[in-house]
């Protein structure tokens, strides 16, 4: 009824001739792909019922897309085509968003997830760093290359950088720019994926201090207007620099410290919590006397420390000597998790209610997981989608919240989480888990010395295996 075509109503039928095959549908179905799609444009034409609209495309793939428009789900016949073909064809008709939402994985639930794919870059396949994007795509650093895999996990391109190895990578939101760094070469470098060029580099310099020279970057975080990078000089002097996104110039220096004790070494991890406007850093070292480290939260505008804890040395005395091995922050939930190095216990804290000892040590009652913490050398924790994913050497487990009678009780209590294995025993033999990170409805896991990146996803399909 737009543009004066008052004789068209949404329930009007329209005949299409796609590649010689006749289809009949309604105007409203064609328009459900969005007002800008080719199909919506076709539906605006004057319809002569005797004369079907001719489209010179493959009819079989069109029938899949027509089913998609009718039902909002992909029929099984779509499996005859690759994801690439479908998305190419959908972008021709202008209904990409429909296809995207139909192909979206189910909400990530750790207790129901399995490895759906392992991304293996063609060369230098050992993943040294990766970063995930909200739509489920991932940027992988391997060797000196960065490879981009889109929401479909199809390879979208590779950029060769000037570095020979990349140990930190972060997307500079919302652009297609990556901030990369290496722990043996100095500086943080910005690469643009659109043209594969280096856009700029930032080094830490201090005219008053000649020791600040060729500082390396150990961690990168991203906020709406700045990029934060933790720089470490050869004399262990370290600092976090805020870099303006538009100018790529250093705007401020946060938390400069000497680095001569474990409480002042360079952070190995930086996280920006957008909701609270704080920058969190944590560092862990392990030596002959066990683990030690700190967690520190800054207000990046004033560069003031908001809260900090050192372990060993703070917290409850019964936990002395049980310093954390890894820390993760759930940015959307505003919670923080740590995993204890000795006991293997998991503790959670609310970022809004921080005190001297904010930790709630989660109790685990699953008898099949009892006594699994001994002898674990590498513990990795990652909070994502209200769940806590823990890698202990090669094993992957998930702590998920038990639903309480429909109430949305988000309080952290000792008993509110259940611990379950995500993997099977044979999965854990693929190598020590080095990094876990969630992106979209996916969980990406990289393992030490193992080629490729595992992609974990929840599915409603039972995966029933026919016995022949």
């Amino acid at each position, binding site marked *: 009824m737009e543009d004066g075509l008052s004789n068209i109503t949404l329930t009007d039928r329209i005949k299409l001739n796609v590649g010689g095959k006749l289809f009949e549908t309604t105007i409203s179905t064609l328009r459900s792909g969005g007002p800008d799609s080719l199909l919506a444009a076709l539906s605006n034409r004057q319809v002569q019922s005797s004369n079907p609209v001719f489209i010179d495309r493959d009819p079989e793939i069109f029938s899949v897309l027509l089913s998609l428009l009718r039902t909002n789900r992909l029929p099984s016949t779509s499996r005859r085509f690759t994801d690439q073909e479908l998305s190419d064809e959908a972008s021709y008709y202008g209904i990409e968003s429909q296809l995207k939402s139909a192909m979206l994985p189910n909400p990530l639930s750790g207790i129901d997830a399995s490895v759906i794919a392992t991304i293996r870059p063609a060369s230098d396949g050992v993943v040294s760093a990766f970063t995930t994007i909200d739509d489920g795509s991932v940027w992988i650093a391997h060797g000196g290359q960065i490879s981009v895999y889109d929401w479909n996990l199809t390879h979208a391109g590779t950029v060769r950088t000037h570095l020979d190895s990349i140990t930190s990578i972060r997307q500079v939101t919302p652009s297609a720019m990556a901030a990369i760094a290496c722990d043996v070469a100095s500086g943080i470098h910005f690469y643009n994926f659109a043209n594969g060029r280096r856009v700029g580099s930032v080094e830490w310099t201090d005219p008053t201090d000649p020791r600040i020279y060729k500082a390396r970057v150990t961690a990168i975080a991203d906020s709406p207007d700045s990029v934060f990078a933790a720089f470490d000089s050869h004399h262990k002097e370290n600092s976090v620099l805020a870099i303006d996104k538009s100018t790529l110039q250093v705007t401020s220096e946060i938390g400069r410290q000497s680095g001569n004790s474990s409480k002042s070494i360079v952070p190995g991890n930086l996280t920006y919590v957008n909701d609270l406007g704080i920058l969190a850093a944590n560092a862990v070292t392990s030596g002959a006397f066990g683990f030690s480290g700190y967690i520190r939260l800054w207000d990046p505008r004033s560069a003031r420390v908001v809260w900090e804890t050192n372990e060993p040395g703070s917290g409850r005395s019964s936990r002395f000597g049980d310093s954390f091995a890894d820390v993760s922050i759930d940015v959307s939930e505003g919670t923080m998790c740590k995993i204890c190095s000795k006991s293997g216990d998991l503790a959670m804290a609310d970022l809004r209610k921080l005190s001297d000892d904010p930790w709630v040590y989660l109790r685990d009652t699953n008898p099949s997981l009892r006594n699994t913490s001994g002898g674990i050398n590498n513990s990795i924790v990652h909070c994502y989608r209200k769940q806590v994913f823990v890698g202990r050497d090669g094993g992957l487990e998930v702590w998920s919240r038990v639903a309480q009678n429909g109430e949305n009780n988000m309080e952290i209590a000792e008993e509110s989480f259940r611990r379950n294995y995500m993997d099977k025993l044979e999965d854990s033999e693929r190598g020590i888990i080095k990094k876990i990170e969630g992106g979209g409805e996916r969980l990406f896991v990289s393992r030490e010395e193992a080629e490729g990146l595992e992609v974990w996803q929840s599915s409603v399909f039972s995966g029933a295996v026919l*016995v022949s």
Partner: protein
Amino acid sequence: MPPFSQSTPISNGFSLNHNKFNQTNHQPSTNAITIDVGGQLFQTTKQTLTLAGSKTLFSNLFDSCDQDNNGVPFIDRDPELFSILLSLLRTGNLPSKAKAFDIQDIIFEAKFYGINDLLVESQSNPSQFEPFDLEKSIILPLSGRDSPSAIATTPNGSLHVSHGSKITSFDWSLQKKSTTLTNFTAIDSLLALSPNIVAAGATDFSGLQILDLDLGFVRQTLNWENVTKSSSTVQAIGISPEFLFTSFESGRRNSNSIMVYDLKDDFKLVSEIARNEIFGADLDSAIPSTKLNWVPSVNLLMASGSHSGPFGVSGNIKFWDIRSGRAVWEIKENVDCFSDITVSDALLAVFKIGVNSGEVSYIDLRNLGSNNSWNCLGDTRKVNNGKKEGFGCKIESHGNQVFCGKKGELELWSEVLMGSLNNEKDRIFRKNVLGRVKDLGGNRITNVGFGGNKMFVTRKDQQCVEVWQSSGKRF
């Protein structure tokens, strides 16, 4: 259900006026109906469409759907899938060409047209269960490292499996699943009340939980308390058309009871039967019921429990009248106590596996209450052996058969009817070992369940469920 009509000239599904195609077919007197689905024309009869039932898309097709000039209603759906569902309406079965599609497509489309029940009926019907034609056909994998502890089935063949603190539910087509996290650390008793509601209990967790698996949380917790108000663990769950039975034992293990809840009235407590408080050394009353079976034909609840002590395993089997709350009949098990027991309503007999002998025995229920003793169907000499050969065996009845899991093997017991010679004293039961050679063996069987035309089997340390069904019934 062929859609024959009584009055009009229709036979074999053909209508005589199909050549009047271009004229208006939509006349109340003619039975043939033309529908345009996605650009393809279909002709059928009103009778066929009304088989879909009232309140479906078809029943008001001619009122609501837009019609073009010659009165043919148009449905904007896939024509190929419609032709499959039309065959389903006509014949009650899916045509073989349906196999070109995924069952999920057909289910989704059937839900759109409102004929999902018909589809389930044709694909997963308990009457299609063929005990002598069962073979291992599907393996359903479970995520994580926990082995299944209990299973629950519904009549149309959907399945709930508890493993660790989780319950994974499979729909009747076994193609879709969902997993729910519970408060339990492990679930020992699981019973499906409807496709999405289960009752779950554990021997180390207080209370029976009624869980809504669609929403993922506890609807209700049913508790029993003795005088000391200690916690109460769930030992067994049973069901009759009206009632839900739960066998509780107090946390200190000094009392036990069977509670009867009303299924129709929001699990209101109806009565309490078989309450035992333990004073002194009365061993018999200390045994809670670990299996509850409803026997519809005699309207009694069979409750059985056993106890392993220094002098061997002893137990009891009681038949309870729910209304009077009295035990009508009791069997004491001192020699070769059951390791698992079941009752078959169709055969009217109780079957057990002796814990010592490992052999199947039965008691006829047809003259209940008389001094019956077990009729051993195997080697009677093994009754007194101390090897506990029957330990860990499972026995379940379904229809006219009794299924028995002995270690890794599945046995099927059925009655041979001997014509006129069939007197009550000598009933003849014969056994078959299920499966082909390749299916034999495996880990010890921990659960056997039945739903739709399928049998479900779980094994120790296997993170999967085996589905056994007749090869011809597989989609």
